């Protein structure tokens, strides 16, 4: 497959990774980076859960607790989930559309290498005088204006992460529009390609908005502006509008690529074509569109006009329709299939099941008057973890199990994979299901200490968090073991797998599709 004019293998040593323009190398870098940040963010979650094991202040101070909730969220979103899916896109998009590499390989290298310094800045913020950002990942002013130098580190870090995302998105769009193999029309593209295509547009649209919001915050902090300061004629609520105009599409940035993954995994193990390909594409596009007109449902309690409260309620409820279409399509794909349950399929089924729970609690939250009671409680914490953890984190793990044999040429250890799956599902539910009850019963989120009636469920949650964290050690072990060897994978890997990436050898050669395949 390799072109005689190109080098066949990668150069050796560290410079291979530093200078690489190869989409597979860059994908690998992104994935290891994401795993590292996932561990880092997880450790911070354990600090949070340890402090919440029982009432009273035991381990950390309230100020440090707030830093942990803030940095945990930023690290998981910008360091964990987003890079994980960009890594998957790098590895998979060229192989799925029959392209030799990404359209802009040098920029690809740069968008990855922006991440480690950005993550370093964010981490360093915790060691600045006054500590890291402690106003929540939403950085609401005026609270975030009070913070120390750590907040400035965070703002600069967000800028770098944002630039990286924008460059990555441009690359993905350029690749998809220009590099498809002959015969692969848009409506023949695999769904992972489609969901990433739409996600990339979301990123391009909203990352600059976030950059604008945090820049205004920076000038409010240091350069005498009063964008968000009422004493200078500014408006603290303006920040929330701008932030959530970014923040809501961001939610779909985190989950849409995972929906794409499910649309590969479920048909493969059901040995049956995906049900409703066209409606999947349109449902994804509809979700993306709706994501731009629902932002204020994150801020029903700020005191909006009635017309605004009603509009955002109705628009938010509408998201249930295209999301429902996706779930129904996945279930219909399984219906009358010939299913087997290897680890990726277990993950896919769990994602559909758990994500739907998060979706339904989201529907409850969309109801404005009821949201006045749910808002800023643990019910919200439970809701968004039921959305992000299953869809984004378990979705990414599903993808890793599914394509790891293609990347490494070795099958992973199926027994360990299943062990990891069951421990993760049990740990996750034990951690987050009780939080629904805590929220309904009146426990606010982001508090380091709580009233006595909340003790039992918090202990469940903490126990679950430690189980969930410990089970990720199994994941690391499975991945490392698979990279180092194992039963050889076939080219197709899975009996029901279809798509260009399964036509090339396992492991995928350093250069693939130097001559484009023809798609019928």
């Amino acid at each position: 497959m390799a072109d005689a004019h190109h080098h066949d293998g990668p150069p050796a040593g560290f410079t291979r990774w530093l200078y690489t323009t190869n989409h597979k190398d860059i994908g690998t870098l992104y994935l290891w980076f994401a795993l590292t940040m996932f561990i880092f963010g997880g450790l911070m979650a354990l600090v949070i859960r340890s402090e919440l094991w029982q009432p009273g202040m035991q381990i950390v101070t309230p100020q440090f607790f707030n830093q942990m909730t803030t940095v945990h969220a930023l690290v998981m979103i910008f360091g964990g989930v987003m890079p994980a899916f960009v890594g998957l896109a790098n590895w998979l998009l060229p192989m799925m559309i029959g392209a030799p590499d990404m359209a802009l390989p040098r920029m690809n290298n740069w968008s990855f290498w922006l991440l480690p310094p950005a993550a370093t800045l964010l981490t360093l913020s915790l060691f600045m005088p006054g500590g890291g950002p402690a106003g929540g990942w939403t950085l609401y002013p005026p609270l975030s204006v009070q913070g120390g130098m750590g907040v400035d580190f965070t703002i600069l870090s967000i800028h770098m992460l944002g630039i990286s995302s924008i460059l990555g998105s441009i690359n993905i769009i350029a690749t998809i529009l220009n590099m498809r193999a002959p015969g692969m029309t848009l409506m023949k593209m695999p769904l992972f390609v489609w969901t990433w295509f739409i996600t990339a547009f979301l990123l391009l649209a909203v990352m600059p908005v976030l950059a604008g919001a945090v820049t205004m915050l920076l000038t409010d902090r240091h350069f005498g502006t009063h964008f968000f300061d009422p004493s200078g004629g500014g408006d603290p609520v303006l920040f929330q509008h701008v932030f959530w105009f970014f923040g809501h599409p961001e939610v779909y940035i985190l989950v849409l690529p995972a929906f794409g993954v499910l649309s590969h995994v479920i048909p493969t193990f059901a040995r049956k074509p995906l049900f409703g390909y066209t409606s999947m594409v349109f449902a994804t596009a509809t979700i993306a569109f709706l994501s731009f007109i629902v932002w204020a449902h994150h801020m029903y309690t700020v005191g909006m006009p009635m017309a605004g409260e009603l509009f955002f309620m109705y628009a938010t409820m509408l998201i249930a329709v295209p999301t429902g279409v996706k779930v129904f399509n996945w279930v219909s794909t399984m219906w009358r299939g010939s299913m087997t349950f290897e680890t990726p399929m277990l993950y896919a089924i769990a994602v559909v099941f758990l994500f739907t729970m998060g979706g339904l609690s989201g529907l409850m939250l969309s109801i404005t008057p009821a949201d006045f009671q749910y808002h800023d409680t643990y019910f919200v914490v439970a809701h968004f973890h039921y959305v992000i953890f299953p869809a984004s984190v378990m979705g990414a793990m599903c993808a890793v199990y599914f394509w790891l044999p293609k990347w490494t040429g070795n099958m992973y250890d199926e027994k360990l994979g299943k062990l990891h799956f069951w421990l993760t599902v049990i740990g996750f539910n034990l951690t987050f299901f009780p939080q629904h009850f805590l929220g309904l019963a009146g426990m606010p989120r982001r508090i380091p200490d709580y009233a006595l009636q909340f003790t039992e469920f918090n202990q469940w949650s903490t126990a679950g968090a430690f189980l969930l964290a410990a089970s990720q050690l199994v994941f690391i072990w499975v991945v490392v073991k698979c990279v180092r060897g194992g039963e050889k994978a076939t080219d197709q890997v899975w009996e029901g797998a279809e798509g260009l990436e399964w036509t090339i050898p396992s492991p995928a050669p350093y250069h693939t599709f130097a001559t484009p395949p023809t798609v019928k």
Partner: protein
Amino acid sequence: MFDTRRLVCALPRALAGLGLFLVSGVAAADYALNFQRPVTEIAADLYDLHMLIFWVCVVIFVVVFTIMFYAVFSHRKSRGAKAASFHESTTLEVIWTVIPFVILIGMAIPSTRTLLKMEDTTGADMTVNITAYQWKWEYEYPDSGVHFFSTLATPRAQILNQEEKGEHYLLEVDNELVLPVGRKIRFSLTANDVIHAWWVPQLGVKKDAIPGFINEMWTRIDEPGVYRGQCAELCGKDHGFMPIVVRAVAPAEFDAWVAAQKGVASAEAAQADKTWSREELIARGEKVYAQCAACHGPTGQGVPNVFPAIAGSAIATGPVDGHLDRVMNGKPGTAMQAFAEQLNDIDIAAVVTFQRNAFGNSVGDSVQPSDVKARRQ
């Protein structure tokens, strides 16, 4: 630290609670699984709306996943299932787009009705102004001029696990918000520093308190009782330590309470003109200092690089003028508030005197309420 015995005890209880929750929403209140018992019409409406939507979600969930798990158990290769090849059905796709849409309309109607009712603050019998601070609430009754601050009453020793925690740990305050039952009360809500949110679950009332904005909400409490809530919007380090306690009483009792509060205020005003001894001032100042302790610490050590120490500070051991100025006017751009608006002359004089003669500071002087009064003009 990990009390396994307690966890084991909690397990069957929580499971029983889970069962009850599914059987009866109301009984579940005892297990803290659902909304607290509503005591206003709006809170009851919200509870019903919440349960309605919850059950709709449960039904959808059960239907969808019964189908999925039927497929998972029956249509598996190990049972010899052969894969079908269908992959679209316009009829099905139209049906499952339209049905959710109809369900949503069914949800939107009662939701809109409740929202309109909830946001209708007209026709109120009385108003209470609420101002949020880091980390306390100020309540003002404009009709009678009664006005006070409400802060956490839980002793620090309980928070630090040095004493056994009381029944209302973290949900108790020094001055409760007293309200009459059966009257429509309009709240007008703002904040002095950062965004907070005033929330009492049993009243079904929550809204953000935002500096520079005045938000409105209302309640009409049906039954006398004590209702507890907390700040719901992250507002800094003591966000978890600024509870709200409402005491709802019969209207006659409320009127008597207002009269008593006015009496306390005028007695206080008379005291402001007398000359206080240093010991009296220090004794009183120690109590007032609880407000300062939120940032500057119970022993005046502050928090390094965040909140300056009072022990040995240049201001608290320097000229009285500078000290009074900082306490009364605050320091703009920081969490240090202008306490001239929050404390009366006696309290300011007392707390300044206390700070100058505590934590190892020994300036030895004192400040009289009349000095504070003079500075106000």
